[in-house]
């Protein structure tokens, strides 16, 4: 640079560099110019740590609204919203009994934007639970769990459980009556394996339930130790776990070839719209050399650039749109309904009824028959069953299609009818006529543990789906039937637990009929 001319002094260099520093700084941040060509658009995606989870190009099938309904994104967006608002709430929240309650009152009344933040946090958490469940249903009904996506389905189960765990641990933090008694019940559900160990007479040396409860509460009552443990779980362990699982979940989507789509997707999509650029009009300049030395399928197999669009901006408009839509929903709910806060927790006066958050009320309904079966047994069976689905259903017809294509819908419809009918029937029987204990007062607990409305319902569903497997001669049909039934059972039990149960867990047609204390 300074060849023949008089070498500029280092001081001059310094002055020039200083002058140019702002421009150079900007150049190092925005390296590739505006994303107007395919190349710069691709660079935009993989040159950015936050965006490079995406492929540079996205298949047009994945961009259709009906493919995913954006439910996974809604879940992730709700997580981001709870994360941001949660961190802000931590500025004021004090995880100590009584002080916790006062700090929530302060957040509600005097912290700038505090009331709004708490409402958003609470509503985003609810939206997240709903979205995660619906997302799971979407993945199931479009057959998107099938090979090679089995493991990601299992990761999804983990995310579901972590999401529920986050909700549950957050429930205690306000330290009001609602929180205190819901957690007391929750902690005793953790203890419910004693129902079995007691019946077997081995509690003394194999007290699994007691250990679980003790680990959860750090004491034998819900007190300051329990609060600090729930706080730790809620703000640290579970969010970290969720973030880690989420990263794996996203990464696997890419590794498993993006979103599942039916075999004939390209034909059904038709030609691309005119204002988008058709790809591969030139011979590719690169070959996939690397593919030869890496085991397994490359990410590009079956996933070529035909019929794809640059992710920037096509995918990002959609993603940002869904994020803002989720925000909109949370904000609207927050302005409309305040997050609840009852009286200060009082260990001497139980709430009646003491209800868990709504998504656990289906379980609480089962718990009202048997603590162990409702709180541990059935959820475990459901989770194991859900996790097994992709390993049992190895068919590949109808992947990427809602309800596995035509013929699936009538089956689902029948399963809905059966699922709702069976749940309502069994519940009606138990509510009107009581259960075994009322009929045979001396019956051993072990019998009730294994024969109760919850287990009967689960068994009915299993029989129904086995019947469908035989009738349709398809494992997929059985899975569809079983999943639908369980979803319906979840809805029925949740609605009963939320709306139709009152003090002493008695049945009431409406909360207006509840007796007054």
């Amino acid at each position, binding site marked *: 640079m300074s060849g023949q001319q008089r070498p500029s002094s280092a001081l001059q260099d310094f002055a020039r560099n200083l002058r140019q520093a702002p421009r150079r700084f900007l150049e190092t941040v925005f390296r590739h110019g505006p994303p*107007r*060509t*395919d*190349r710069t658009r691709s660079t935009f995606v993989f040159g950015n740590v936050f965006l490079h989870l995406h492929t540079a190009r996205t298949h047009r099938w994945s961009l259709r609204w009906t493919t995913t309904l954006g439910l996974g994104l809604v879940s992730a967006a709700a997580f981001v919203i709870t994360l*941001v608002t949660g961190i*802000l709430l931590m*500025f*004021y929240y004090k995880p100590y009994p009584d002080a916790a309650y006062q700090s929530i009152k302060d957040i509600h009344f*005097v*912290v*700038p*934007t*505090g009331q*709004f*933040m708490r409402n958003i946090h609470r509503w985003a958490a609810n939206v997240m639970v709903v979205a995660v469940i619906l997302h799971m249903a979407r993945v199931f009904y479009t057959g998107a769990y099938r090979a090679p996506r089995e493991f990601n389905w299992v990761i999804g189960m983990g995310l579901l459980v972590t999401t529920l765990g986050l909700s549950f641990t957050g429930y205690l933090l306000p330290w009001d009556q609602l929180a205190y008694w819901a957690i007391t019940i929750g902690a005793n559900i953790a203890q419910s394996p004693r129902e079995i160990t007691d019946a077997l007479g081995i509690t003394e040396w194999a007290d699994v339930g007691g250990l679980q409860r003790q680990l959860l509460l750090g004491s034998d009552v819900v007190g300051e130790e329990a609060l600090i443990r729930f706080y730790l779980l809620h703000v640290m362990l579970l969010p970290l776990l969720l973030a880690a699982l989420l990263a794996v979940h996203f990464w696997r989507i890419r590794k498993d070839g993006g979103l599942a789509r039916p075999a004939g997707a390209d034909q059904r999509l038709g030609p691309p*719209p*005119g*204002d*988008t*650029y*058709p*790809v591969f*009009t*030139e011979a590719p300049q690169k070959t996939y050399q690397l593919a030869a030395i890496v085991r397994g399928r490359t990410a590009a197999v079956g996933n070529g650039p035909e019929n794809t669009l*640059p992710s920037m*901006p096509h995918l990002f*408009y959609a993603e*940002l*749109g869904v994020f*803002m839509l989720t*925000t909109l929903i949370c904000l609207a709910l927050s302005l409309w309904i305040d997050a609840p806060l009852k009286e200060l927790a009082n260990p001497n006066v139980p709430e009646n009824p003491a209800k868990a958050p709504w998504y656990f009320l289906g379980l609480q309904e089962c718990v009202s028959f048997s603590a162990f079966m409702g709180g541990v047994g059935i959820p475990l069976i459901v989770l194991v069953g859900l996790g097994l689905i992709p390993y049992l259903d190895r068919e590949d017809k109808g992947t990427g299609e809602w309800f596995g294509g035509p013929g699936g819908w009538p089956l689902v419809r029948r399963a809905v009818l059966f699922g709702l009918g069976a749940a309502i029937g069994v519940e009606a029987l138990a509510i009107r006529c009581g259960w075994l204990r009322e009929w045979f007062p001396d019956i051993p607990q072990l019998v009730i543990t294994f024969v109760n409305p919850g287990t009967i319902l689960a068994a009915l569903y299993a029989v129904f789906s086995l019947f469908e497997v035989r009738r349709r001669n398809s494992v997929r049909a059985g899975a569809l039937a079983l999943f639908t039934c369980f979803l319906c059972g979840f809805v029925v039990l949740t609605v009963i637990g939320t709306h139709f149960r009152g003090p002493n867990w008695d049945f009431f047609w409406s909360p207006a009929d509840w007796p007054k204390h």
Partner: protein
Amino acid sequence: MTAEARAPRSRLDPEPVSRRDFLGLAALWAAASALGFALIGSLRLPRAAVLSSPSKKFRVTLPESLPAGQAFVPPGRAVALFRDAEGVYAVSLICTHLGCVVKSTPTGFECPCHGSRFGLDGTVAKGPAPQPLPWHKITGGAGDYVVDESANVPQGTRLKA
């Protein structure tokens, strides 16, 4: 979908996105302003609207036997009260340097943190303190006084005992 748009081009050419993509730009600006507004709102949160510290005004009863020039420090408060022939006055014990609580000695006040020294009337004698110790407003009488830590009076202002 003009014929021109369908003509094959190089992949390296810009996509024929209309330069006046009003919808896209409007959407992006709307999103940016919504997020910006949310950010401003969130940034307001950490600044507390009310402070949780107790009232700066407090009552104090001076012992009858307090000798002139000896400090009386009410428990839990960083204020020294004096009574002399001219009246009663209250000197702050918060060092004006970096807020340590100074110690009352027979000759004045010493800050344990960075060695500032103050005279009995609060004037800086030594060390890094930039300002004398302020005198607080004091009201009441006949042994019972109300000291207001949030209100200062000029040095030398005494309340007639």
